[in-house]
């Protein structure tokens, strides 16, 4: 690693160490407690964090296991909850490609596992004032701190849930749902995201009463398609 790459890596790591790692940590702290509550071992919690590396998907897995949903339905729902990674890597990768030293495809394929909502949003914003070589190292440095923070906080959450008094346990268990509630409602700015939010929530709750094992897939397909159609109609008319 030449000095410039090392500097970019450290810049990335340093920028992740503040708010991004802490916000992510809060989400994963709650996740660890929910995983422990669902009977996960420490290893399973860690493996889920590293293998899926998308908190929504990890929560979908926990939820559907608790509801004893069919395996195929569970895998499909986890996958769909992460479908936004497709356009995300699609837009992020061209920004890291090229430059003096051409990187190999397998390096990009490995780096893709590190992409998350947080790393993507920050990279898209920060990449504009960096050269391509620095972007790569910045991304790795930023991601390393995010993954490390998530893993540590998930472990702490897992161990904490057994040590806390009962009332505090409730608070810890609600942390991650609250985190997503605030994120989803706070970020719903566009008409399509607001309709997707409302349609998804309404479909999930309606289906929960009749077919709980299918409520999340139904929310995605029915709620998501409804939101998409409403948005398209609106765009055409407007």
């Amino acid at each position, binding site marked *: 690693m030449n000095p410039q790459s090392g500097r970019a890596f450290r810049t990335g790591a340093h920028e992740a160490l503040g708010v991004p790692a802490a*916000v992510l940590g809060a989400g994963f702290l709650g996740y660890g407690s*929910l995983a422990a509550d*669902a009977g996960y071992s420490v290893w*399973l919690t860690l*493996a*889920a964090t590293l*293998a899926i590396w998308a908190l*929504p998907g990890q*929560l*979908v*897995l926990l*939820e559907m*296991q608790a509801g004893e949903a069919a*395996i195929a339905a*569970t*895998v499909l729902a986890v996958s*769909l*909850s992460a479908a*936004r*990674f*497709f*356009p995300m*890597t*699609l837009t*992020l990768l*061209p920004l890291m490609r090229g430059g003096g030293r051409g990187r190999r495809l397998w390096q990009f394929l490995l780096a*893709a*596992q590190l992409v998350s909502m947080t790393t993507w949003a920050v990279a898209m914003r920060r990449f504009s004032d960096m050269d391509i070589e620095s972007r790569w190292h910045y991304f790795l440095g930023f991601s390393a701190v995010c993954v490390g923070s998530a893993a540590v906080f998930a472990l702490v959450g897992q161990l904490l*849930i057994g040590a806390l008094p009962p*009332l505090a346990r*409730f*608070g810890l268990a*609600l*942390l991650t*749902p*609250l985190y*997503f*509630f*605030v994120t*989803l*409602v*706070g970020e719903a700015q566009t008409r*399509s995201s607001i309709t*997707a*939010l409302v*349609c*998804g929530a*309404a*479909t*999930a709750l309606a289906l*929960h009463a009749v077919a709980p094992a299918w409520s*999340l897939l139904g*929310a*995605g397909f029915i*709620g*998501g*398609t409804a*939101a*998409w159609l409403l*948005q398209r109609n609106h765009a055409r008319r407007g």
Partner: protein
Amino acid sequence: MRDAADLWLLLLACGAATYLWRGLGVLLSGRLNPHSAMFEWVSCVAYALVAGLIARIIVAPSGLLAQTALVDRLFACAVAFIAYRIARRNMFVGLVCGVAFFVGAAYVRSLFL
């Protein structure tokens, strides 16, 4: 609860199924338009699914949260969001206020039961 080996296999399958999207993005980058109608749909589906997930966890949770009151969970969400907005989109203020309210409400309930 399924046994541990099944759980690990399921976990790996979920990891692979998540990676599918990341890998496709790498392989097809530069060749697809990220603003096409298909991606709008994909993004709506993912968004709605996660919204459904959170709605379900809050309204009809399993495990530990199932022992808490629905009203408390709903109010905790409202408190967290209002605090987040008042604190100029500070996530920590939102989470701390929401959790504090929730634990406080559970405590008050425990006094009367």
